[in-house]
């Protein structure tokens, strides 16, 4: 899901995203999602590049950087800041909370020595809370990158984290 920025050329990533999703206003969320998928977040250079590539006086298309930044800051799956190589999303809603979620969350924070929204100094982990992921029958639930873990107990945390490089 995430890879270091230097591996990817902003211009070609933005170009590919626009080719795939289109040049209209309603394609902007998918375009930003695509950029976020490649870089792990939406870099400011990428926002600038989207505006540049979409600028087309003939079609009267003007998308401002501020509009794209507004989208990035609004939607939870888009990040304005760089994140670690792996992002842990922990569901903090009531169904997971009731069946023991808090103990898992405390365990995660302790194990990684992170608070909500922080990234480890080695850039390996970012820990964030998320709203309901719709996997409530197997709560407590956490998501690492695209891998879902259900019925998680505090004892399992170390073993789960060891699976990631």
């Amino acid at each position, binding site marked *: 899901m995430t890879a270091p920025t230097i591996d990817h050329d902003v211009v070609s990533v933005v170009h590919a995203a626009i080719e795939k999703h289109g040049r209209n206003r309603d394609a902007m969320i998918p375009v930003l999602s695509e950029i976020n998928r490649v870089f792990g977040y939406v870099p400011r250079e990428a926002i600038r590049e989207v505006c540049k590539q979409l600028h087309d006086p003939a079609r009267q298309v003007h998308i401002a950087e501020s509009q794209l930044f507004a989208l990035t800051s609004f939607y939870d799956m888009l990040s304005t800041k760089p994140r670690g190589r792996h992002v842990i999303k922990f569901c903090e809603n009531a*169904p997971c909370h009731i069946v023991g979620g808090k103990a898992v969350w405390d365990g995660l924070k302790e194990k990684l020595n992170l608070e909500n929204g922080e990234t480890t100094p080695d850039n390996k982990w970012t820990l964030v809370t*998320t709203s309901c992921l719709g996997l409530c029958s197997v709560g407590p639930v956490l998501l690492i990158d695209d891998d879902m873990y259900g019925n998680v107990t505090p004892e399992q945390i170390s073993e789960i984290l060891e699976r990631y490089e």
Partner: protein
Amino acid sequence: MIKKRAMILVSNDPESVRLGANEIIQHLNEALVTYGLQDEVDISTISDINHSNILPLVVVYPEAVVYGPVKAADVRYLVEEHLYKGRVVTDLLAPPKMLTGQIGWLRGHKGYNPAEHRIVLERAGRIDPENIEEYITSNGYDALGKVLSEMTPEGVIDIVERSGLQGRGGAGFPTGRKWKFVRAAQSSKKYIVCNADESEPGTFKDRIVLEGDPHVIIEAMAIAAYALGADEGYIYIRGEYGLAFRRLEKAILQAREFGFLGNNIFGTNFNFDIHIHAGAGAYVCGEETALLESLEGKRGEPRSRPPYPVTKGLWNKPTSVNNVETLANIPAIIRNGAEWYRSIGTPSSPGTKVYTIMGNVNFSGVIEVPMGVTLREVINIYARGMKPGSTLKLAQTGGSSGSIIPAVLQDTPMDFESFRKAGVSLGSGALLICDQNTCIVDLVKVLLQFFRFESCGKCTPCRVGTQRSYEIVDRISKGQGRLEELDTLLLLAGEMERASNCGLGQTATVPIRDMLKHFRTEVEAHIRSGNCPTGVCEMTQEFEKI
């Protein structure tokens, strides 16, 4: 804890009560004690039966044997024979031909797995969702064929309206009426939008439909488009539902290939196609006008209404926004008729409801049952009881439009009207069952944390109200609350309900109101004695007498 081996349902609609249902329940309790069965058998009630000749009814689970009419004098004999000796009392059996509707399917579905009535989830888990042929061979696209070859758009709307189908996203607006508005709107371009932005905490019913039976949504949207006069549809699916997205994408391609989408569908001059749009993580986008904003590529901030989407929706064109579960009912209604649909559920809320059950119960997952089933029935029959050592304290019906239902209300039939009368809301159908170890303050704090995080920030009452409410409840949970702050909470709640722009802010107050209505003493204990009765909240401040 001793595992319950049987459950008795007694009808308690007004007619049954007049004929002695309460005496029957009393006699049942006595007889169970006499035979030492009180720990093995549960007694519950069932209402809206509509079988006036055989009331009161007594239904014994898991065999699903229906007795009726039962008199109080019969009860002891019935308990001795059926529950103690295990023999069915044939003299008291209700005549089979009288058993129709809800009670009919109860009787028709015996066995270990409790009876469900699946319309929305009819195929989910039974067919290969990635194979259109399996959908077609299980009545798939029949309804679309029928609509296009035999029915007028007005005829379709008429059936849907007569079926009494109400929106399953939480608000319960009659679907037929919504379609009528869009049909009546003057415009050369109209849209049908499927709201698959399922984000209410505890709700995953739509995911099960989308992952297990994606074609039913495509078929329903095509039918809706024909009825509305639309030729384009959008499915707005939340970004987190990757598998559902991929299956829908595949299903749309297959449907195009088979000619169910595209031009001249079924050889008629009806054209229709569907686009699928993934969200990027924002709960508020489940609100229909925020969803439309997001579809247009903007921040998902709800619009001011009026105008409503039925006249000015997507790109200012008349638009019908319907929930996944609502749409999944449509093909079955077209195939079987409005009267069939009305025979299921309760008169005021026809049809079934998909519930997601979770919390301190033995079975968590998804069920589909007729409207009007009670919370007690769901817990005891479908969730197979509370976990060992747990007793029911409350149930939370999920997300912003839901309520906190205390145990005393567990016999209220779960349908839109009964719940409205009882002052609670069905919400999206999530049932979070909480036991005695749940602290109300802690639970409401978690709910308010959700709202303050998900408030889009466009309007002040919601943005500030959710934040301030959270802060107060957070202080109470730490033993730092003051009694007068409970009045502040209610004051804030009133302002938020009156002045918020959309449902999020208007209903974020429900947990606060329910907390103070049903569990005020527990809240006050946190404040007056600096003590969390359940021991959940960590009191951080040394208590000083106020």
